[in-house]
């Protein structure tokens, strides 16, 4: 079982998204949020009643090389959190941010939390990032992103991935 090298960027994003989706279906406070595949359009965002954790497509940035053959790809993937409920405070986005960092900074949790993902025609039930041959090398908090409305809050992160 593994992500497909000829569909690698899509497969990595699908796996990370399904992991986050699994977290938001788990226990509080994750259940207060919704996972979204891709950066949500504004009209979609307006119709959501919960803060959103979104993923963006990972991008190939480097390779672990060996002489005479193929290498292991290294990717950078942006993801973010967006609270547009206009509650007037940053508390919820701060909680989301803390939970995201805590998840991706814990090697045992992030690599062994199970989720189900469909890649192409194959369904992988109760799999995890380790099994799908994805390794999270680190996460970077990129800070707040500007929003149109000052009552909305948005935070972005960069994941470092090996696959």
């Amino acid at each position, binding site marked *: 079982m593994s992500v497909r*090298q000829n569909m690698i960027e899509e497969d990595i994003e699908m796996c990370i998204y399904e992991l986050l989706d699994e977290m938001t279906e788990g226990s509080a406070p994750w259940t207060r949020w919704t996972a979204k595949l891709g950066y949500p359009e504004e009209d979609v965002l307006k119709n959501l009643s919960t803060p959103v954790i979104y993923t963006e497509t990972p991008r190939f940035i480097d390779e*672990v090389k*060996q002489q*005479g*053959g*193929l*290498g*292991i790809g290294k990717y950078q993937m942006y993801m973010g959190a967006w609270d547009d409920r206009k509650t007037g405070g940053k508390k919820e986005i701060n909680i989301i941010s803390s939970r995201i960092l805590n998840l991706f900074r814990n*090697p*045992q949790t992030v*690599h*062994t939390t199970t989720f189900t993902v469909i890649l192409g025609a194959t369904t992988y039930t109760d799999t995890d990032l*380790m099994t799908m*041959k994805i*390794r*999270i*090398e680190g996460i970077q908090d990129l800070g707040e992103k500007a929003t149109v409305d000052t009552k909305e809050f948005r935070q972005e992160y960069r994941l470092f991935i*090996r*696959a």
Partner: protein
Amino acid sequence: MANPNSTQLAAPAENTYLRGQNVIHRYVQCEATAAAPVVWSNIKWIQSVVVGDPTYEETDVFMQGSKEKTKLRRNPVWPVTINVLNGKKAQVISDLLGYAWGSTNYVVPSNMSNDNPDVILESIFREEDNTTHVFSQVVQDLILDDSGMDIPMDYADGVINGHTYFPPFYVYTGYEAVYDVWDATPTTNTYTTSATPATAVVASSHDFWDYNNAAFIKQKDNSEGETVGNRLTSGAAIAGQTLTVTASPLATDKVYALYVKVSA
């Protein structure tokens, strides 16, 4: 001319690219209180463990009447450097020396009293999940060295120097080092190991290895005033879980064995 070999190697598996960040280090005292097995203690605060290339005493031996020479290499020494978070340097030195830092010991010296082995250090390489074992590295009979004390302005690692006279070795996936120590029973020649040793290496094809299924078997003879266990190069064997020493130990003697077993 045709390409003699057009093979393109497949990409390496994910667990071929490992980081020290996912390694966990643990140790046992060489002169631990008798237990089979001796329980390993994990070491926190490690930044790196570096085992350097060995150095040897080398001598060229000539023979009268011949132009040829024989090069002798003897007495290898492997230097070992342990870098720790500076704030815990004293704690780690104390732990490795077997002192109870902060409870019965409040001072740890920067110079070492002797050249006796202090600890066996096992470094366990895992994958990114900090769980899946890839392989391990064992430094046997590590001796801590005298050290300086450096207090720079900025953050820095604390450096602990050491050395060993015996080769560090690697342990296969799914296997782990085991250290058994027994208080000898007079006239008892057989002792039961806590696990079944796996075949380590074919001793006859490797220097320094005396047994196929033990890194070492030691015996300490207190009647001779020995303070540490000494390696047996003969007169001992392990079959199954039975360790047999030929020389009957005395009441206060100790018997030790370092080997590897399949992890549970």
